């Protein structure tokens, strides 16, 4: 492809190729402090379905080692989002080394707090605000559990903030680097936040999972313990590769839910959410 870049996020190395310069330029800017790997694990392609669609109402299709057929393309103005989605897609479908959990994670003192939930539960927002309060951000989208050790590895890609979370996090981190505002995406307004220098520097350092949280945003503050069997079922639903990893996945997940306490937390606003997490962690 005409334009390309390479970048490593945690233990995953990507090569991203594009028919257009803009998405690659945005990645090179926002990921400028990330390592550039020699050998990529995963390939992402941003391509025009027909040659003229490079120029005429350019529509960015997402492909690579794995592609979702018939996925709707994104307008070129959302090319950065397409690149991020492409990297997520390869991780979700091609990751075989680690058990992949759709969760955000932060670490303090070697202990990782994993937060998982449906879109809108506040995974990214809580992770970004905890980063602002001195936690090490391990990632806002995926946590990787090593079946061999049980340790959590981070995937600190750009933090994807949506809608109201954008202003909340900007107020908490006025000096942080943000990507361009991407209005009108399939998930509303999106703006990416660059993880802080500490998160990037420590991206390869795993941590011991210490707490599993299942947050829900928009409910009265509440918390309850989650029994291991419920945590297990919810985490299989939050994993894209549990079935592919077969017995290694079973071992990794049973070990996680047997050794790490789990709590469901409801929170009405981000302030009380942060307070709940910090009280439990």
């Amino acid at each position, binding site marked *: 492809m005409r334009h390309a870049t390479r970048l490593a996020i945690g233990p995953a190395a990507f090569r991203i190729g594009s028919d257009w310069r803009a998405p690659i330029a945005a990645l090179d800017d926002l990921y400028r402090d990330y390592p550039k790997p020699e050998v990529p694990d995963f390939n992402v392609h941003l391509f025009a379905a027909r040659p003229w669609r490079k120029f005429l109402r350019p529509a960015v299709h997402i492909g690579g080692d794995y592609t979702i057929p018939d996925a709707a393309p994104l307008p070129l103005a959302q090319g950065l989002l397409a690149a991020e989605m492409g990297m997520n897609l390869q991780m979700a479908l091609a990751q075989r080394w680690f058990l992949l959990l759709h969760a955000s994670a932060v670490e303090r003192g070697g202990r990782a707090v994993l937060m998982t939930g449906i879109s809108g539960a506040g995974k990214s927002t809580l992770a970004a605000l905890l980063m602002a309060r001195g936690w090490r951000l391990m990632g806002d989208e995926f946590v990787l559990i090593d079946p061999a050790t049980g340790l959590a590895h981070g995937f600190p890609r750009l933090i994807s903030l949506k809608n109201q979370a954008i202003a909340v996090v900007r107020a908490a981190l006025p000096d942080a680097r943000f990507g361009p505002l991407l209005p009108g995406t399939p998930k509303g307004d999106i703006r990416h936040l660059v993880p802080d220098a500490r998160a990037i520097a420590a991206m390869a350092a795993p941590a011991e999972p210490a707490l599993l949280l299942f947050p829900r945003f928009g409910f009265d503050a509440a918390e309850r313990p989650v*029994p*291991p*069997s419920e945590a*297990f*079922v919810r985490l*299989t639903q939050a994993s894209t590769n549990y*079935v592919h990893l*077969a*017995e290694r996945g*079973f071992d990794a997940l*049973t070990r996680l*839910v*047997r050794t790490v306490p789990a709590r469901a937390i409801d929170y009405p606003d981000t302030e009380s959410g942060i307070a709940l997490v910090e009280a439990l962690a």
Partner: protein
Amino acid sequence: MTSYRAAPPETLRIVPLDALTLIYHRASGITHVVDAPVPELLEALGVGEFTVDQLLATLKDRYDLLDADPAALAVRLDELVQAGLVERL
């Protein structure tokens, strides 16, 4: 008379968690999340071959089974055979 026994132990991974138990079936790669009396059934069937009536008697002795319905037990055993957790002989 049909009799049953548990699948060989090396074909399963059984991990009790709390009220529920996980059973990983190696051949299919399927994880079953099961409630009582499935773990008890597998444990009883792990020591030998049983007809439905023999199994029912064992379960009554060992687990104080309240609902001793042979037809219901046979249906449950057939489900476990389908899942590969029990063998029909």
